[in-house]
């Protein structure tokens, strides 16, 4: 009996053991499965789940760069990018709902029910659009409809508060030009709000456009950035600010003055250019009918450029001082050399006359300039060989486009001396048969004003970085065109034009002024032969004891008052304003009065 008890006990014990072992085995197997899966997923990443999750979380967004602004010499903003919003609606979504809920303005915790029409009515009210137009735009099956462009941020916020279904606002950048048409052609404008297609916006586009940055981060399902995840930011490099040499107030003044003159004279167009003699900086460059970059389509396409640099015209008598300077430098004449000048002068079978008939009289070289005699100029200028005439004009920058950062800069036309016909070789001496832009004329006179050193014209003063540091634009090379004494003698002759010569109207009280006028026949446009109308110009510098500024006023094809001297009022007011605004001290010393006639007077016997 004991035996059976012993076996039974043993049997039970073994069964218990077996169950325990089986249970343990199952647990270990399950553990193995879990552990194995863990190793597979975490260790070997079978199935690329970690990568897929990472890819789903990660976002890379582009950080747009802000376009740099354009400022003038004093820091006045001429062009600026501002934040604006486009209001976009999803008609499909909007049509599908009859009413929606909006936060109750009285109690933000509650919501009130608004009908679709009421929502659209509110929207139309904010956008100042008629309700029917808004409703029409909001109805349909498309998923995108632009409702409004360039909405102010406050209005955009108010629109979002309305919670109209399907309405979203998209932030954009809009370019505004706070000064409008003042310096409008020089500043230029953008195409599609992105790239400049005129003026400084075009030529400095690469500086103004920055480099977009990027940000890569991880975002959770709630739309919030996961703070502990890697967050790499490459900051956007905003465009740099371009600082011009212009003075907006003087630019406005000059624009208004030339526009008035052109309107009064019924002329085609006009231009005023003011340049600093010692630095070559362009202080004002005014054209008529300048575009307002906020609305460039408001003027004709032909008005959207900067005529002061793109239009090449025959300069006329303003070229004569350059020839006189060349004669002085070559030692082929002196300011006091007397010439006996007939009414009409014939050389090589070509006859030249003056703008007024006169008996044969005596004039010095200074008097030839003072009375703007074509005959005298040919008489003296023919002492230069054809090649010398060409070389000297080239030295003064004629025939070469000045280095100005504007599109379409004209170099004018100065043909090679071997291409000159029998008449042209003499007419170039008094500025016909050669063409140049207003800026080229001004820069040639700048060398005379600056003791013979010609500088490159400067329109861009420098660049301002984001941190406020300024970087000056590189200055071009300067070159000595004429010697200092030649420049002084030429300046004396120019001053005598005003003090002694025919053009006393150009005088400015308190300052010594030197000037020269030009009235040239303007060749017809569109390839028609012959001449149509006149180009009246006057260019001068002040103060003559130490010239600071050069001003040229040009009027193209005035209907009335075609002479250059008729621009003297404009010249006087612009030059006077420039001198006053820049606090140029009044002239000291005696004004120069070079003898216009020479020994024996106008009709005395010459040497």
């Amino acid at each position, binding site marked *: 009996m004991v035996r059976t008890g012993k076996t039974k006990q043993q049997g039970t014990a073994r069964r218990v053991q077996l169950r325990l072992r089986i249970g343990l085995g199952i647990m270990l197997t399950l553990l193995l499965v879990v552990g194995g899966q863990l190793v597979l997923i975490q260790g070997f990443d079978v199935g690329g789940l970690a990568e897929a999750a990472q890819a789903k979380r990660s976002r890379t967004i582009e950080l747009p760069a802000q376009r740099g602004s354009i400022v003038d010499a004093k820091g*006045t*903003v001429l062009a*600026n990018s*501002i*934040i604006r919003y486009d209001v976009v609606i999803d008609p499909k979504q909007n049509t599908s709902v009859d009413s929606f809920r909006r936060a109750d303005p009285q109690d933000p915790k509650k919501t009130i029910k608004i009908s679709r029409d009421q929502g659209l009515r509110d929207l139309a009210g*904010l*956008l100042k*659009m*008629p309700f029917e*137009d808004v409703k029409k735009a909001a109805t349909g099956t498309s998923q995108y409809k632009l*409702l*409004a*462009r*360039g*909405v*102010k*941020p*406050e*209005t955009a916020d108010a629109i979002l508060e309305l919670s109209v279904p399907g309405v979203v606002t998209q932030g954009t950048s809009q370019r*505004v*030009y*706070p*000064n*409008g*048409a*003042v310096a409008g052609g020089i500043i230029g404008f953008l195409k599609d709000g992105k790239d400049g297609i005129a003026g400084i916006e075009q030529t400095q586009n690469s500086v103004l456009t920055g480099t977009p940055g990027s940000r890569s981060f991880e975002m959770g399902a709630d739309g*919030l*950035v996961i*703070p*502990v995840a890697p967050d790499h930011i490459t900051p956007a490099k905003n465009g740099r600010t371009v600082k011009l040499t212009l003075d*907006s*107030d003087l*630019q*406005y*003044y000059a*624009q*208004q*003055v030339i*526009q*008035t003159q*052109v*309107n009064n004279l019924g002329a085609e167009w006009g231009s005023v250019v003011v340049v600093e003699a010692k630095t070559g900086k362009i202080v004002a460059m005014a054209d*008529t*009918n*300048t575009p*307002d970059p*906020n*609305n460039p*389509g*408001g*003027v*004709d396409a032909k008005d959207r450029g900067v005529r002061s640099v793109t239009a090449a015209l025959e300069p006329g008598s303003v070229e004569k001082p350059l020839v006189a300077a060349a004669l002085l430098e070559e030692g082929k004449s002196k300011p006091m050399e007397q010439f006996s000048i007939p009414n009409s002068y014939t050389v090589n079978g070509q006859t030249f006359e003056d703008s007024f008939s006169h008996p044969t009289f005596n004039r010095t070289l200074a008097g030839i300039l003072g009375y703007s005699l074509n005959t005298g100029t040919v008489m003296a200028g023919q002492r230069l060989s054809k090649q010398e005439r060409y070389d000297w004009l080239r030295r003064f920058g004629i025939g070469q486009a000045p280095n100005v950062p504007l599109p379409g800069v004209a170099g004018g036309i100065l043909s090679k001396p071997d291409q000159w016909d029998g008449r042209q070789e003499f007419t170039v001496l008094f500025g016909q048969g050669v063409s140049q832009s207003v800026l080229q004329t001004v820069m040639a006179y700048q060398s005379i004003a600056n003791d013979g050193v010609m500088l490159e014209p400067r329109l861009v003063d420098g660049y301002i970085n984001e941190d406020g540091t300024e970087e000056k634009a590189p200055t071009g090379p300067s070159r000595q065109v004429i010697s200092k004494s030649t420049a002084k003698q030429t300046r004396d002759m120019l001053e005598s034009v005003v003090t002694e010569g025919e053009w006393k109207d150009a005088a400015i*009280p*308190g*300052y010594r002024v030197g000037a020269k006028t030009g009235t040239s026949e303007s060749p017809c446009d569109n390839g028609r032969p012959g001449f149509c109308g006149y180009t009246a110009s006057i260019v001068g510098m002040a103060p003559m004891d130490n010239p600071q500024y050069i001003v040229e006023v040009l009027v193209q094809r005035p209907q009335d008052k075609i002479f250059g001297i008729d621009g003297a009022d404009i010249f006087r007011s612009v030059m*006077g304003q420039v001198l*006053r605004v820049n606090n140029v*001290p*009044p002239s*000291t010393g005696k004004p120069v009065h070079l003898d216009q006639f020479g020994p024996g007077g106008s009709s005395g016997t010459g040497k």
Partner: protein
Amino acid sequence: MSSVTTRPAIRTVGNTARKLATPAPQPAPRKRTPLVVVPSAPRRKSVVFVASCFAVLAAALVGVLLLNIQLSQGQYDMVALKAQQSTLTKKNQELSQEVQNFNAPQNLAAKATAMGMVPSAGQGQIDLDRSTVSGKAVAATKDEKAKSAIIAAPAIAGQLSVVPSSTEDQTTTDSAQKKPAESKTTAQAPAVPQVPKVQLNGGTVPAPAQRTPGN
């Protein structure tokens, strides 16, 4: 356990059998000490230890939770601050724009004219170093109103314009800019709010009254 079986001792019958050396009688099997449950000594209470373990664990978990809450809160704060920065930037831009608009030379000149100011006629110069007066300073006269051209105000939507429409002969600028500006503005009218008609500088529209800023 198996009981110890007792072997009976070898009996001797008669004396035929040799007297065997009888093994020494085995000592009586030791009696096992009867097993009794011994009340064990009272164990020291280590609940404190366990509890402190749990407390440390809980504290660690709570600490991690708080840290995460702070991080997320910081993230929300950052979003809110960024939104505030954005709002302030926009406000700044609005105000700067207004200032620039007032500074625009056309608007300044127009406001001055509206106030009755006229351009100066002639200028003189006072040299303090030399105590000299030069130039020909002439007092400006009230009817010094030349028919000067009007440069239109900047055509920026939503900005006030004080440049009056020219009531005299239409200047080419105005007429050239008026028509396209009109068509552009009417095309834009559905798009842009608050475009004052005064920006058209229309020749037949009477000059607008001066508006106060902020309108």
